[in-house]
């Protein structure tokens, strides 16, 4: 059972504080913050204990969501999942989870907490139940931006661009929205690649998330690739596509990437509410919509990815006559030519004691900087189209450069986002709502994105 729940900003301001059982004093907040700021140099471990009070915290969106409990045999999984759920609910109700939104919507959050927990016991965390009780309206904190106007056409007509789901669409509070449904296929990639380009580890964790703001809808059907195979079961023969899908997708659907083999995942788990009657035959997920975001299916794929890893690095590192360290990198993006990676950032670990950096980058939209406190050179590439190659030459001044220092260079860690690409090849074939929406067409969005979890290249 949970004694208190409080939310602290990263600076230690108390944003929300609710006591459920009255067995821990309100000075617990101060105690916790003392522990956070204690100069251990590292992030606070998930559970800390002071006397007989246990603090369990989750760090999300720059906020500490903390639960205290006095019983050491409380289940940690349940408490942490609860805090995560609280964060997700705040995100759903307020549009985003940040210090600002929490400050603006604290009344709503008190109301949420009041309904979610009673006497420290979790009562309900499902959006469907909670929405009956929550009365306060969320205040959205979207700043005014000229970009919002860009989508408005002449005389308010929709421009072509408005067919594209705005990036902020998903970050809209769930109340008072239009009738919209978002299906997001989000994949996280973690790769370890040897210096010679050999894959040492490749793993993809994927999730099909549905965010639904439909007032009247009894069933959603999501069709996945028909040739999807799970585990090592024999590949299914391809069946002809029997139905034309009427999906409005985010941007034009890129021509289906030419995966030779069938799409495969190693293991997958479904939300308990998903009915899998049609899954074996047609790979269709059927489920009743819930308000807010829910993860319908999670899956995992390891070692044998259908596509080559998206980036290859060709490094050359040497010492020049002036005692500087020269690092020459060629970075190749192996995505299909029509897609591109965005927000690519390569972090190269450099020897201790680097003083300055001079750089030669192959195109002007790149940038690089030296971060001495992290011992790293960060190379940022805003947009990196598939099939192209970029190069960079970094000259580093290291006062005490020895041959041993060369060993300290690397690995290179890449962070990136691949919009419209799934590393596993999973696609949403169709998205149908039943019964057909009669009050105006519902907006249906299907989006794909692959993000890097950890993409390390050895040197």
């Amino acid at each position: 059972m949970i004694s208190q729940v409080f939310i602290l900003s990263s600076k230690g301001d108390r944003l929300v504080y609710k006591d459920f059982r009255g067995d821990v004093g309100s000075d617990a907040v101060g105690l916790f913050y003392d522990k956070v700021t204690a100069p251990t140099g590292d992030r606070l471990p998930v559970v800390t204990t002071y006397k007989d009070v246990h603090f369990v915290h989750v760090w999300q969106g720059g906020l500490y969501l903390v639960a205290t409990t006095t019983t050491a045999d409380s289940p940690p999984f349940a408490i942490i999942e609860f805090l995560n759920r609280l964060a997700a609910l705040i995100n759903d109700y307020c549009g985003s989870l940040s210090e600002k939104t929490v400050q603006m919507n604290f009344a709503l959050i008190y109301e949420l907490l009041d309904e979610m927990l009673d006497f420290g016991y979790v009562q309900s965390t499902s959006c469907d139940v909670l929405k009956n009780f929550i009365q306060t309206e969320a205040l959205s904190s979207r700043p005014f931006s000229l970009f919002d106007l860009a989508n408005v056409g002449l005389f308010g007509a929709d421009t072509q661009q408005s067919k594209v789901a705005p990036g902020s669409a998903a970050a809209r509070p769930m109340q008072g929205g239009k009738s919209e449904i978002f299906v997001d296929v989000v994949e996280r990639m973690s790769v370890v690649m040897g210096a010679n380009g050999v894959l040492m580890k490749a793993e993809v964790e994927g999730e099909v998330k549905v965010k639904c703001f439909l007032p009247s809808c009894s069933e959603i059907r999501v069709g996945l690739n028909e040739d999807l195979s799970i585990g090592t079961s024999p590949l299914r023969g391809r069946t002809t596509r029997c139905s034309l899908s009427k999906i409005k997708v985010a941007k034009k659907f890129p021509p289906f990437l030419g995966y030779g083999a069938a799409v495969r995942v190693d293991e997958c788990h479904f939300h308990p509410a998903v009915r899998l009657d049609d899954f074996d035959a047609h790979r269709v997920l059927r489920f009743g919509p819930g308000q807010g975001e829910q993860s319908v299916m999670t899956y995992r794929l390891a070692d044998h990815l259908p596509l080559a890893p998206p980036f290859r690095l060709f490094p050359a590192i040497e010492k020049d006559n002036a005692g500087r360290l020269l690092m020459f990198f060629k970075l190749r993006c192996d995505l299909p030519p029509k897609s591109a990676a965005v927000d690519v950032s390569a972090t190269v670990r450099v020897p201790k004691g680097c003083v300055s950096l001079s750089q030669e980058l192959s195109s002007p939209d790149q940038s690089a900087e030296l971060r001495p406190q992290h011992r790293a050179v960060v190379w940022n590439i805003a947009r990196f189209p598939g099939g192209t190659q970029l190069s960079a030459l970094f000259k580093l001044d290291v006062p005490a450069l020895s041959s041993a220092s060369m060993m300290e260079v690397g690995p290179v860690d890449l962070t990136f986002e691949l919009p419209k690409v799934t590393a596993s090849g999973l696609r949403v074939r169709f998205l149908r709502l039943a019964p057909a929406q009669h009050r105006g067409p519902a907006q249906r969005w299907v989006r794909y994105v692959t993000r890097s979890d950890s993409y390390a290249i050895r040197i």
Partner: protein
Amino acid sequence: MPYLGNDDTVKDLKRVLSNPHVQSDQLRYRNAILKVIRIMSQGVDVSSLFSEMVKACATVDIVQKKLVYVFLCSYASLNPELSLLVINTLRKDCQDPNPMVRSLALRNMTNLRLPSLMEYVEQPLTAGLRDRAACVRRVAVLGWAKLHKLQPNSEIDGAVVNELYSLLRDPDPVVMVNCLRALEEILKEEGGVAINKPIAHHLLNRLKECDVWGQSEVLKILQRYQPHSEDELFDILSLLDASLVSPHTPVMAATLSLFLSLCSTLPAVSLAALERVRGPLLAACGSASREIRFTVLCHIQLLLRSVPGLMGAHYKRFFCGYAEPAYIKQRKMQVLVELVNDDNVAMLLDELKEYCTDVNTDTAQAAISAIGRIGRSYSDRCLVILTGLLGLKQENITSAVVQTMRDLVWVSPQCSDTVCNALEGCEEILHDSQGKQALLWLLGTYGDKVFSAPYTLEAFIDGVRCETSSAVKMELLTATLRLFLCRPAETQDMLGRLLHYGIEEETDMCVRDQALLYYRLLQCGVDETRKVVQGRRSDPSLGVLIGRPAEPVSQWAHIFNTLTPLCQITSETELVNSSFQHTSYQPNSDLSDAMNACQLQSIEESVGEHTQSPSDILVTSTIVPLSLLPTLTPAEFEHLWIQGITHTEKEQDGVCMIEHVQCHNVTHSSSQSFQAAMQLVNIQTLAFTPINVLPWRVYLYTHTEAPPCSTLILGELLYTGNANEEEDAFEHTKGYHDANIIVVGEQIERKANHEEDVTLEGKNKSDLTKDNGQVAKLKVTLKQKPRDDKALRGFLSILTTVLHTLSPEGE
């Protein structure tokens, strides 16, 4: 406090709240109240607004009501009288046709936490239990638990308890779970809610209706249920099978916990459950929430204690991500160390090597010591990596590597040559005291193998005045003295200087005392010094008992899915990287050795005095110097032991001796304390059965160094527990070894007062069973080569003394 003008703000708000114009405008009124709550949650004291807020409570606006309740519940205990005013409003709300209003009122009525209001609350609560709306019943059920918590000493109302039990059959699953929770709290004194067969099966059948939280709660409470038959047990297990692989970690963990407690007598089923849960656990390892990832890692560590091979093939899942926080990385490395096997060791070390240069020094250090741990089984590969890291010449890395090497050498002495070669030049890079201590220990212990050791020590001695850490100085003293013993010519001068400094100039008492001790020791002669200072070079216990034996599941099942595994960070890292223990006691170990040697002498003398029977052999035997060197490997030991049995009769150079020693039950003393006690007197234990296992056996060996010759003694201690059996065994061996000299041991009559002391020491241990206090009869079989009766008896007397001084575990 965030604002300076708090008082003004509160006064302003008070004015606004009491302004009738504001009160009539719903929106403005609500905004004012919002402001109050906002500054309240920032930690400002707004208790002076209590009466205004009480007034604001009487409204039809539910949002406003909720806000006011948040306020009231926080401050009610400060204003019990004024709170009475709220009760009327609340009781009226309890009659409201809207169930939401009813539940809200009921919940906050019980949240006020005022004992004086109890009498007003009970009636609405009783009504609430029978309310039509489930949400009101949910609140009412927990309301009773809250009332009980307010007045824990009040009598439990049997009618309410019965009503709560009957509400377990409520159609609403949350009401059912809340009933369990409430009963659990109300009946805490009686051990919580009673789970009989019908209730258990009812709960199991309705498990599916509950949400994640309810399920994990029910599963936890079901741990208390004991199925009546095996069939029933397996019915329950198959019913729970689906939840065992649930994608929701709380449910999965709670189910596994239940499985383990149900199958505590069926280890095979528990192991099957652990196998089954592997998939979901690994999936949770890749969870997007790093807190969940961390929690899963901690629990996987528990699992690996019993099933070390569980995750071996999935080691790649535990590779660290670049951006992961250090606490996850360190946990992952701890798991990786456990997973190492012949197939993955190359990949694993390659990965760990990458972490050694991590920007976070703690992570780098953890990676280096993880490699050291793997080095215990794969020393060659690891030493290559470790020596390579020294080439980086970075302070923190070098320090960690030297410490790791010291720990490694301590456990596997065969690495010492490589390590000694690598030490050259490290002293210039080391600046922290931990690293210096490790280097000094290595130089002192293996000074004969490191050519430059005297020069390195000289540099340290020259700089000793600038050294701030007394631990380093003490280590330096020991190292120099040890080096002096093996390389006197080169070291004599600097030792003199160091001792002079230590005695004359040093202000730290510990250092000064140690210098004095060493000085006086040297005055006694080099041989005496050698006896005291020449410490062990390795920890032989670990070299023999390769690999940790798999623990039974029951060792950790009770802490599974609790906060305990997550809190054990400090203790576990200490276990993993034993450098902490090392450095803290290493410098003193020689001292304590010396002390104990003195103590032992006095003990033996006193034993001799006590047992002054003329026939006693012990008195006649003088103290035999024992030594651990040269070390015996288990294989050699086994060979000699078997050889001893078969050949001693023919070759008259060896001897076998069987002896019975009475002492209190040493089988209960922990293996560590036993081993430590034996090592104090330079007896090496090679292998032993776990405590409390019968028959209990220990194999040990030592060398006697009585001039003119030294002998090797091998020994076996056997305790069968049953006196009759032991006699049989004894007869048997007697017959078998007829030709050997069999000394039937003197029954050492223990003085009654001595025994009393022991029981007094153990009196506060309630779990000290009778068995522990009893005198056990140990059969001691000794084999010696070459034969030297005097030395053998001397050894036996020492052994007996040690066995007597050993006390049962827990003291």
